[in-house]
């Protein structure tokens, strides 16, 4: 078949291209140019840098496959970077990799693939697409450490039908690197990307403040009981559950304090003791379902942040409001703006974004 491979220039997507090519498919490589790399020069460890485009092209050349660089700077800016800043300005903690997958990667690349008469879109994500009785299902990767299904929770059923994740069955990253080495790919030993690609310095609040200056304005730090404890240096530096950066408000006597809530309107940060943070009900918006939306409360497991194992919960879907109410078995800390992914065993049932409680 003719298959489009989203090649980032990293080892994972390079191996995907090489494997599909070796299987005899007509592989077309596409690398997205997402932002101006001039400022973020050749810094190892961050994805999508200029060097990565070069690496992707080298791999494609070595395989002898067609390869194209797609200019998506404007699209990425409006769909991902501005959304990232707006989310901070609204007192949330955004998760731009999901927005990117949702828009620039899956929506746009699937569209391009169809325009080109391509039959599938393959990526280097660690997730499994398995045939189920009612069509393709998305499952956690065999390597639980590497599993990226959380980041794919906004993938629609139509996109999933078109997608392929050839690395989902690999036991670990070492096995993927070994394939890269065996195939003679120069990227075999390339470091993994760590940061959010468009913030190569890792200082998110600076990127956000450049777009939304209000996120760098100081405001009050207030205790849940109403006492004003201090001043903060801008909402863009804080997230729910955070204990650092609170200065004089980091302790109430002997009790350490954490961010419980960010209030965009008043620019206030509300803090409280750890025990006061967990919520018994977590509202979720922008739900994407990979199963028929449940009409009754559904027992499943939920994942509220990238680095945690799914926890038992009961979720109730309200089709009229488009909201999901998540009741975890044990109250949990949830940061608005982060994703909530629902699982049944290894299967991803759907996902959305955590909303504010108000």
């Amino acid at each position, binding site marked *: 078949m003719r298959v489009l491979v989203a090649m980032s220039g990293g080892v994972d997507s390079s191996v995907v291209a090489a494997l599909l090519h070796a299987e005899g498919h007509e592989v077309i490589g596409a690398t997205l140019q997402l932002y101006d790399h001039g400022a973020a020069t050749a810094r190892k460890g961050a994805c999508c840098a200029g060097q990565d485009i070069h690496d992707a092209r080298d791999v494609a050349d070595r395989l002898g496959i067609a390869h194209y660089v797609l200019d998506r700077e404007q699209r990425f800016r409006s769909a991902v970077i501005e959304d990232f800043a707006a989310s901070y300005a609204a007192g949330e903690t955004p998760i731009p990799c999901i927005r990117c997958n949702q828009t620039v990667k899956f929506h746009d690349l699937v569209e391009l693939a169809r325009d*080109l008469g391509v039959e599938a879109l393959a990526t280097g994500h660690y997730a499994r697409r398995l045939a189920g009785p009612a069509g393709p299902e998305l499952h956690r990767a065999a390597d639980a450490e590497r599993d990226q299904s959380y980041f794919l929770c906004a993938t629609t059923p139509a996109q999933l039908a078109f997608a392929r994740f050839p690395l989902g069955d690999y036991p670990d990253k070492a096995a993927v690197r070994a394939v890269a080495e065996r195939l003679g790919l120069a990227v075999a030993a390339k470091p993994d990307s760590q940061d959010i690609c468009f913030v190569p310095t890792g200082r998110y609040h600076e990127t956000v403040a450049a777009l939304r200056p209000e996120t760098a304005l100081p405001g009050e730090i207030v205790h849940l009981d109403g006492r004003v404890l201090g001043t903060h240096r801008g909402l863009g530096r804080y997230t729910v559950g955070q204990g650092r950066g609170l200065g004089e408000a980091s302790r109430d006597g002997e009790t350490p304090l954490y961010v419980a809530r960010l209030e965009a309107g008043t620019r206030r940060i509300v803090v409280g003791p750890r025990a006061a943070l967990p919520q018994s009900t977590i509202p979720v918006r922008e739900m994407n379902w990979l199963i028929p939306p449940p009409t009754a409360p559904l027992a499943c497991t939920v994942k509220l942040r990238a680095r945690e194992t799914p926890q038992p919960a009961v979720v109730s879907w309200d089709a009229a409001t488009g909201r999901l109410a998540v009741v975890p078995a044990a109250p949990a800390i949830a940061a608005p703006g982060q994703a909530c992914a629902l699982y049944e065993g290894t299967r991803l049932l759907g996902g959305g974004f955590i909303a504010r409680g108000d």
Partner: protein
Amino acid sequence: MVRLYLDANATEPLRPAARAAVLAALDAVGNASAVHADGRTARRLLEAARSALAQRFGAAPGEIIFTSGGTEANALAIQALGAGRRLLIGATEHPAVLAAAPGATPLPVGTAGQVDLEALAALLADGPPALVCLMAANNESGVLHPLAAAAALCTAAGARLHVDAVQAGRLNPPLIGDSMALSGHKLGGPMGAGALLLRPGTVLPPLIAGGGQERGRRGGTEALPAIAGMAAALPELGEAARLAALRDRIEAGIAALAPEAWIAGQGAPRLPNTSLIVLPGAAAETQVIALDLAGIATSAGAACSSGKVTRSHVLAAMGAGEAAGCGLRVSLPWNAPEDAPERFLEAWAMMRGRLSRRAA
């Protein structure tokens, strides 16, 4: 799959005569600046190339400066002739010119892509002496500027005129204005040589002084094989008419297939080999990729070195609006096969069918 190359404006295939000249020059051992007999042999080849260009473009041999290519020739002219002058640059000029003239005032073009002569006259009248830069033929649309009229306006206003003839070189345009830039590989020679032609008496300080080659106007040992190849890359008689007929068949086919498509600058005089086909709603990038996968090499205006396709500033200047991102450039090489229009149209129709299916 036999590929079809329709991207001559990016680079022409090497002509056999140019290839022979390159090979002969590669075996000439001397440096053209050396004193000995071998040096004189190389010098003879170099000067023969200079004479051939002089004859072809109606310039004095002593006023031809060999450069590394069109970009350097343009940069040299703008740097040297624009010093202390206002820069007036056509809105549809090539990046080689635009980037060499930061802060220049753009000269608007009409919807057909030709420079607005009234606007030029008004700008010339309003301010200190200027250097005007206009391309003889546009690389994306093939549209020819009314250079004789523009040159007359410049002369009357005491302005200098530099002409980028990189694409128009194939038409053997006579030297017009104060200077004219050429590129070897756009004629069918190898990459690596270009030339700047000067009106006699034009004083030109070098960008690179080096060893004083090219009468002190461009330092560095001349790239003799590339220069010999450029001089030997003469278009055959009747080539333009043959290409124009192929181009017209493509454009007639497009009109029959797709009423929504249009040809940029179709009403203006154009290069015989170039057609900029605008298919509203279809991203240029997608069109180029789809045709490449079908075995046909085309282009979407200017691709940057990373290979990414950007919105066409040429179509934007011609008032195309949203459609500035939807132009596909077809440029027929000197050796385009007779069935090129039919093969292109078949692939183009299939591509359009796929794109409109999604839009529907």
